């Protein structure tokens, strides 16, 4: 759904309360945006905003009136390809890994290997790959419950994530987190949160640390960037707005990435939001807001480069709205009855993996065979991950209370005068509390 920016003086011409998606008049035009591979071209020119980085009154109006700065740029120009062969293969591999992993999760779930709420990322791979493959290891990623692919893109081994989903002790969180709580200290994945919006302040804190390290601890070269991924539903939540304010206020090195897949379980974004254009909410807080076609990894990557670059240079936060779509239901328990099959078909036709494959082959970056080899390798990786998870042990009872406190003296002093943590059996939860 991409709105013509210049038309946005008045509210959109539909009633959001009574229409269902299959009756809606065509502000959503499935045929207009799907023609060229590099679909929506609604993006800001970043250059002008970089110059206006200082928060002066007259510059502020330039940031607010961002709709006037939209410029159409033909990305598919002559010999000027966006990616090298290596980059293309890296992106392809990452997206295929994300897709294959999630498909395997679905299989395993229906075979009774994992339980609870599992939210799959199929269809949104371009956003994760487009952003995360530009990061360094020290940069942080914060996500929501739809976090498997963010973790895997960031570098957490697929076997560790699969093992975590199976609830085994070898999982990245020792089996204690589960699908919605993927963490990795080594790869700086700070979660994995079940409540929407609650990860955004944590991301803001990670960005705050980066700024603190540079300015207070005098680590001159600390330019770590934080990415916060969240959905359209979150954009109506207070924590989102509060953090946009704080990030812009203190120019924190953070990028707020909205994965707008139009649906919050069964709630259409249009029914929940008074002004559905999320990118416009950035300028309201003094940071640039950009809309990008989230089904196109190359476009996402271009926007991400700019946004991450801004953050690294100390120019502050950016709000990036990625128009994307999830091919499956909200979770594996969602029957997905409300979404219009025409809508699903439209976005299935814009599958980011198919699109990148087409781009690579058409521009002769690699052969079909090379891509097939990648797909085969990934299949093996995912198979191996399942085998590893299957073979891993369940957590032992002694693990029950081990990680409640970083300093186990927090369990207190027992009646006998000893700290409870001195009793070796205490972590089993058998000792009297």
């Amino acid at each position, binding site marked *: 759904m991409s709105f013509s920016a210049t038309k946005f003086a008045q509210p959109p011409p539909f009633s959001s309360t009574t229409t269902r998606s299959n009756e809606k008049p065509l502000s959503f035009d499935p045929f207009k945006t799907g023609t060229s591979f590099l679909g929506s071209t609604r993006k800001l020119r970043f250059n002008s905003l970089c110059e206006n980085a200082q928060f002066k009154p007259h510059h502020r109006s330039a940031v607010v009136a961002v709709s006037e700065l939209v410029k159409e740029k033909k990305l598919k120009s002559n010999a000027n390809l966006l990616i090298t062969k290596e980059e293309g293969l890296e992106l392809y591999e990452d997206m295929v890994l994300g897709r294959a992993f999630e498909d395997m999760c679905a299989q395993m779930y229906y075979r009774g290997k994992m339980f609870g709420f599992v939210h799959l990322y199929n269809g949104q791979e371009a956003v994760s790959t487009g952003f995360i493959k530009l990061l360094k290891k020290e940069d*942080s990623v*914060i996500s929501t419950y739809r976090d498997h692919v963010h973790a895997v893109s960031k570098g957490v081994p697929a076997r560790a994530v699969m093992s975590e989903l199976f609830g085994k002790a070898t*999982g990245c*969180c*020792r089996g*204690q*987190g589960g699908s919605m*709580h993927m*963490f990795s*200290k080594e790869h700086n994945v*700070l*979660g*994995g*949160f*079940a*409540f929407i919006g*609650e990860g*955004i*302040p*944590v991301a*803001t*804190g*990670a*960005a*705050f*640390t*980066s700024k*603190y*390290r540079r*300015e*207070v*601890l005098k680590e001159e070269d600390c330019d770590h960037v934080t990415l916060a991924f969240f959905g359209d539903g979150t954009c109506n939540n*207070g*924590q989102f707005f*509060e*953090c946009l*304010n*704080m990030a812009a*206020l203190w120019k924190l090195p953070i990028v707020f990435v909205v994965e707008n897949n139009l649906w919050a379980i069964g709630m259409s974004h249009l029914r929940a939001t008074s002004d559905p254009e999320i990118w416009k909410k950035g300028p309201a807080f003094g940071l640039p807001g950009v809309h990008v076609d989230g089904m196109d990894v190359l476009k996402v990557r271009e926007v991400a480069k700019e946004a991450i670059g801004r953050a690294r240079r100390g120019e502050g936060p950016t709000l990036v709205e990625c128009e994307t779509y999830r091919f499956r239901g909200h979770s594996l328990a969602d029957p997905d009855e409300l979404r219009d099959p025409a809508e699903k078909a439209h976005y299935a036709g814009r599958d980011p993996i198919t699109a990148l494959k087409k781009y690579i082959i058409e521009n002769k970056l690699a052969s079909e065979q090379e891509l097939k080899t990648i797909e085969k390798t990934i299949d093996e990786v995912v198979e191996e991950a399942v085998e590893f998870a299957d073979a891993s042990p369940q957590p032992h009872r002694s693990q029950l209370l*081990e*990680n*409640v*406190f*970083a*300093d*186990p*003296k*927090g*369990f*207190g*002093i027992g*009646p*006998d*005068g*000893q*700290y*409870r*943590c*001195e009793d070796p059996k205490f972590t089993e939860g058998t000792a*009297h509390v």
Partner: protein
Amino acid sequence: MATVFQGLGAATAISASNSFDSKKFQLPSRRSLSVRKDSILVVRSDGRVNHIMNRGARRAEQLITNAVATKADGSAASTASKPGHELLLFEALREGLEEEMERDLRVCVMGEDVGHYGGSYKVTKDLANKYGDLRVLDTPIAENSFTGMGIGAAMTGLRPIVEGMNMGFLLLAFNQISNNCGMLHYTSGGQFKIPIVIRGPGGVGRQLGAEHSQRLESYFQSIPGIQMVACSTPYNAKGLMKAAIRSDNPVILFEHVLLYNLKERIPDEEYVLSLEEAEMVRPGEHVTILTYSRMRYHVMQAAKTLVNKGYDPEVIDIRSLKPFDLHTIGNSVKKTHRVLIVEECMRTGGIGASLTAAISENFNDYLDAPIICLSSQDVPTPYAGTLEEWTVVQPAQIVTAVEQLCQ
């Protein structure tokens, strides 16, 4: 077992990761007050004192018995001849905070009006001038978000102190405190630690109205993964502040609106108290009175009356609201066989309720009478002065309860 430093001298059985650095002892405190280097007190709840350099033993013993600020103290003798220095409770908090900020650059403060305003109760006065606007961060009014920001900063290596201007405001941060502060260490499989301190004034004040008179310790106590402590004197305020900052666990430090101007003489030497220990305020034989924060003073006032009537109450300030120090409490119960709990929480679901359960479970055989728990009424604190007075426990009720227990 007293403070973190205890392990250096005595042989202890702690095999848990108690990674303290012996270098800490040699760090001079760069304060303007005269400081004796390398002389650190380790104060135990049973009155014994261990010294690392074994100087000034006699002085230290004097300090322990004067743990409660009483009126007779300090007024007669000249201040110059006594050891230590006198200050108010909020200054003690600031002193502890400043010492820790000096010692570790990663310690920072965030909250509303903590910077330029110096804190609504002046606990962070002048710190922003000294340490800058980033280390003492004035936040917008967004408790949930800036508490979450503190948690994210703690996960990535800083040691933030989040101030709730009034503890009641932290109700807005309950999402972050419960889900992230308490649980993240566990759900991440132990990968991330959250060394955050959340502090602020709470409790019933002088006609502040219902919403500014809340006791959040009863709401937070179920959250797994956090520790809660309540300070009541300048001495324990400073010690607990320092201990909370140094702890790798998330700690909620409860201060009380009416106690900020208490005056006491505290040691010049650096000291850190134990987060998990209770404080023996007044040893006795007849009855164990367990209390914390402001109610300690109502109890001590009642104690005077009780002593005149011939009773000998043992008063313990439990200090650690989560976890309970069942050793100190248990020893007392085994001695007196009668327990009275005096708290400011409401009757339902308060700290007293949990404490009653814990004592009943662990020390039932030692009790000669049922435990009496005096709490505030289950009512939103009224504005009218008379009604407010009847909401909280008053000394007369404490006296009556002890008489009832000791029949």
